[in-house]
């Protein structure tokens, strides 16, 4: 168990390392000059050269990468003009575009994205796995059909439409909910949940169909197994059979998928974040990609990457916990 975890963590670090190299290489190749953007719309060549120098953009790629690593492990110094700013390790540097410390940018936004992703996950698991369970239980029944249509409508609709619809109905028309605006959990938990409800719902609606289908099909699969027959033969209710025996066998793909979605949501909930005005990592990422703000891009990708890797480790642990035949090696 412990060696297993150690090995996984070492693997995770390797993954993140590769990830940072990929991002560096990729964005090095992208046309466009962050200095020009930072320099403003009417920049002249001299000024541009100064800005480039300031951002160390003239260094070759390996040197820049080296500086990045240096920042990560020993920290970096930056000039604000009037003074020298020391950025402690792990330092992702300063944003090219607004001179903010990247670590700070991330730490402000991570809780938002984490709230969004985790909350949505809970909701979609309830909705998705619940629907899957129900539809496996009531095969061919009216409940199954209604639920199926419902979740399918979710998958078939892009988030920007679902989100806007939700906002229109619940905030504008019915006025049951406020237009979302992020309130930190630490500040006011009730307001936090209240404001996150719609974004969670939007994401959950979209994701749940996936889970419903997968749960249902895995369930039907396990329901055909011989051991299910035993419990049927002992008068165990269909609900208990599905809920206790079949579900367990149906969980591995669901767990795998949850880890996957949760991880990738960290970097790609950009549309949801924009729509609901949530200042999260997704928005930050797209913005920094568009402005070739490499330090920010790398940092966000590393953070989301870490989320993915951690989610996967947790998934594997959970997975071994549900199926004792699987050994962690």
């Amino acid at each position, binding site marked *: 168990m412990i060696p297993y975890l150690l090995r996984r963590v070492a*693997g*995770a670090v*390797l*993954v993140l390392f*590769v*990830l940072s190299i*990929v991002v560096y290489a*990729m*964005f090095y190749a992208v046309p*466009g000059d962050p200095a020009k953007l930072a320099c403003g719309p009417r920049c002249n060549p001299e000024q541009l050269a100064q800005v480039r120098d300031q951002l160390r953009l003239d260094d070759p790629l390996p040197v820049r990468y080296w500086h990045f690593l240096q920042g990560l492990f020993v920290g970096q110094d930056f000039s604000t003009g009037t003074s020298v700013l020391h950025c402690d390790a792990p330092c992702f540097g300063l944003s090219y575009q607004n001179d903010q410390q990247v670590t700070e940018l991330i730490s402000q936004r991570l809780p938002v994205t984490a709230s969004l992703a985790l909350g949505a996950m809970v909701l979609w698991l309830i909705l998705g796995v619940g629907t899957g369970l129900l539809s496996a239980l009531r*095969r*061919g029944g009216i409940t*199954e*059909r209604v639920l*199926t*249509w419902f979740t*399918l*409508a979710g*998958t*078939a*609709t*892009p*988030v*920007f*439409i679902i989100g*806007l619809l939700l906002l229109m109905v619940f905030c504008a028309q019915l006025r049951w909910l406020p237009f979302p605006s992020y309130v930190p959990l630490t500040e006011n938990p009730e307001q936090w949940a209240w404001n996150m409800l719609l974004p969670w719902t939007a994401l959950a609606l*979209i994701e749940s*169909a996936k889970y419903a*289908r*997968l749960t*249902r*099909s*895995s369930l*039907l*699969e396990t329901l*055909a197994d011989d051991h299910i027959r035993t419990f049927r033969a002992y008068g165990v209710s269909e609900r208990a059979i599905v809920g206790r025996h079949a579900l367990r066998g149906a969980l*591995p*793909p669901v767990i*795998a*998928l949850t*880890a*996957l979605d949760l*991880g990738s949501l960290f970097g*790609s909930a*950009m*549309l949801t974040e924009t729509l609901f005005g949530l200042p999260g990592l997704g928005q930050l*990422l*797209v913005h920094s*990609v568009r402005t070739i703000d490499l330090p920010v*891009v790398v940092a966000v*990708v590393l953070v*989301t*990457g870490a989320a*993915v*890797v951690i989610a*996967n480790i947790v998934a594997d642990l959970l*997975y071994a916990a549900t*199926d004792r*035949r*699987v050994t962690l090696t």
Partner: protein
Amino acid sequence: MTSEVLATTQAGAPAPASGARQVWRRLRARKAAVVAGAGLALLVLLALAAPLLSALTGQDPNTYHDDLVDSARGGVPTGTWGGISAEHWLGVEPGTGRDLFIRLAYGARVSLVVAVGATLLQVLIGVIVGIAAGFGSRFVDGLLSHVSDVFIALPMLAFVIALTAVVPADFPRPLLLVLVIALFGWAGTARVVRAQTLSLKKLDFVAAARLGGSGPFRVARRELLPSLAAPVITYSAILLPSNIVAEAALSFLGVGIRPPTPSWGQMLSTATTWFRADPAYVLLPAGLLFLTVLAFTVIGDALRVALDPREASRLGVGRRRTRNANKADNANKVDEAGGASVSARVSGAGAADTADMAGATSAPQKGGPA
């Protein structure tokens, strides 16, 4: 069971159909699957026949009709229901007055090609990698899992934005989208397949296959793949709509299909803001998308069932139905109480059975939302 039915089946019995033909027959037996298949065929036809339809209706997907929109009101189509008329069957696009029907037909081409292409590629890579990871040695598993982690961790939207700037402008967009979506999406399939493979490989039938001298490839292909078919098919049926929607999202960010080529995703992304001023403009692509998703889901589900011999044998026979049959059977017994001969009873039961079977085949009870 009447004896005629028996006679025919017995005649057909010596040559049992194998594999694909059986699956095909089982699929055909499900009404929902047939309807979904027909619907999908219609969509494909719509896409293929787009130029023909264009000639037929005399509408071009790119021709502007500035006279059909109310310029002072943001370009909303004049006339009811988004400007439906004899020329424009489904109305026109706000702002430009382009014919919606033809644009939807052309849009189907891009959307279906991108979604299906990306899904196939994604699943192909995913299954191969997933099996290899789940079935391979610890080293292979570790390596592949890490590689897939890297791909999952790369945020697709961000990278597409970067990629589109790097890729030459004349690179065919649909192909680029297929590649990009697949590249960023295979890892999901791989994870699901890996999880399933890990379970499966503990089973005795895999051990038996190994004993039979099957190498890992053979075991993967012969033993694991069939068992993976269900989750993979279900997963693909889910991926497909997400891929259509991914195309829409990419269009929303301006990195999808290039105008003026229509695609459903692009129509949806521009239509979003219009759903109060011109609901038809949103509902059409959204409706088509929904139907496509529905069709693929139903077919996916039917295919999953058809591929499972255990499920297939109870195909179309629901629980309630069996019970009714027994009730009918019992009623028969009550009627004939006392003097009924054994043969009469048997044929009575047989009649109920036949009726049930006939009913069952025409009205599948199990699975499938339709």
